[in-house]
C-alpha cells in the first residue's frame, strides 16, 4: 500500500536531480486528448510514455495533454517538441509505437520517420 509519506523519498531524490540539471525540460511530449483521440487509445499511449520515461529515468522529459487539433482520422496524435528543433507530429499511435518513439527519438534523438505525419518550424 502506498501512502503520501512515500512521497518524501521521491521528493528528496527529485530535488537532488533537479538541482543537477537546473530543472530544465529538454523535451515536451504532448498527447492529443480530444474525444476521437480518447476513443482511439490516446490514454494508453500517454500511460506508455509516462511508464517508459520513468523506467528509463528521463527526468528532463515532460508529458502533457492538449485537445483535438484536426487530425481526427490519424488519432491518437502525439507532438514531440524539443528545444531548438522542429516540432514533430506522430499519428496513428499505439502502445508499441510509443515505446519505439521513446527509445529512438527521446533517447537517441532520431525521430521515427515512418510514424511522422507532420513537421513544423
Amino acid at each position, binding site marked *: *500500500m*502506498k*501512502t*503520501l509519506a*512515500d*512521497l*518524501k523519498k*521521491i*521528493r528528496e*531524490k*527529485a*530535488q537532488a536531480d*533537479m538541482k543537477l540539471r537546473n530543472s530544465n525540460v529538454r523535451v515536451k511530449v504532448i*498527447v492529443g*486528448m*480530444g*474525444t476521437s483521440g*480518447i*476513443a482511439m487509445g490516446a*490514454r*494508453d499511449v*500517454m*500511460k506508455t510514455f*509516462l*511508464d517508459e*520515461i*520513468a523506467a528509463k*529515468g*528521463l*527526468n528532463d*522529459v*515532460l*508529458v*502533457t*495533454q492538449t*485537445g*483535438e487539433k484536426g487530425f481526427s482520422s490519424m488519432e491518437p496524435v502525439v507532438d514531440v517538441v524539443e528545444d531548438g528543433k522542429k516540432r514533430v507530429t506522430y499519428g496513428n499511435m499505439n502502445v508499441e509505437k510509443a515505446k519505439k518513439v521513446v527509445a529512438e527519438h527521446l533517447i537517441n534523438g532520431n525521430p521515427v520517420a515512418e510514424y511522422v505525419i507532420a513537421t513544423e518550424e
Partner: protein
Amino acid sequence: MQDLSLHLMDIVENSVRAGSTNIAINVGIDEFSDKIIFDIIDNGCGMDEKTLANAQNPFYTSKSERQKKVGLGIPLFKQNAEWCNGSFLMTSQVNQGTSLHAEFQYHHIDRMPLGKVADTVVTCIIGHPETDFDIRFYRNQINGDALIFELSTPSIKEELGDIPINYPDVTQFLFQIFNDGIKNTKLEEV
C-alpha cells in the same frame, strides 16, 4: 468509447476546457440500487440554459473552428447511461461551474465495463498539473459497509513542495496509489 473510464476522461477534458481550477471526480457502486454512479463537479465557466441543452445534442460543438459541427462526447455518454436503465443529469450555472451525474445499472447486459478508472484519473492529473482534482472512489456494500478512497491533489502537491506533479517518479507513485484505491473499493474488473 470501449469502456466507461474513457467516457470519464472525455467528460473531464470538457471541465478543463471550461477553465476549471478544481474538478471533483466521484466514481462508485451502490449495491442497494444496483448502480454505477459518476459525479463530475467543476468550477469552470458554466453554461447558460441554451448551451446546456445544446451540449446534449450530437450536432452541437462549442469549438467554433470546427467545420463539421459535431460534438459526440456528452451525447454518447448520456445515450449509454439511458440504454443501461440509468440516468443522466447535467446542471450548470454561468461563472459557477457544471455538475454531471450519470448512473448505469450495474447488472445490465449492455453496460460497458468500468475500465481503468485509475489510469483516467492519473493521466488527467498529470496532463493538467495546474488544475486541482478531488478524487473519490466508493462502494456501498449490501452488508451496510461502505468502502471509501479519497485523495486530493492539493495534499499531494503540498507533500511534493517544489517538485512538479508530472515528475516521472511521481507519475509512477500516482498510478500505484490510485490503483490501490480502486482495489480497496472493489472497483477492479467491474
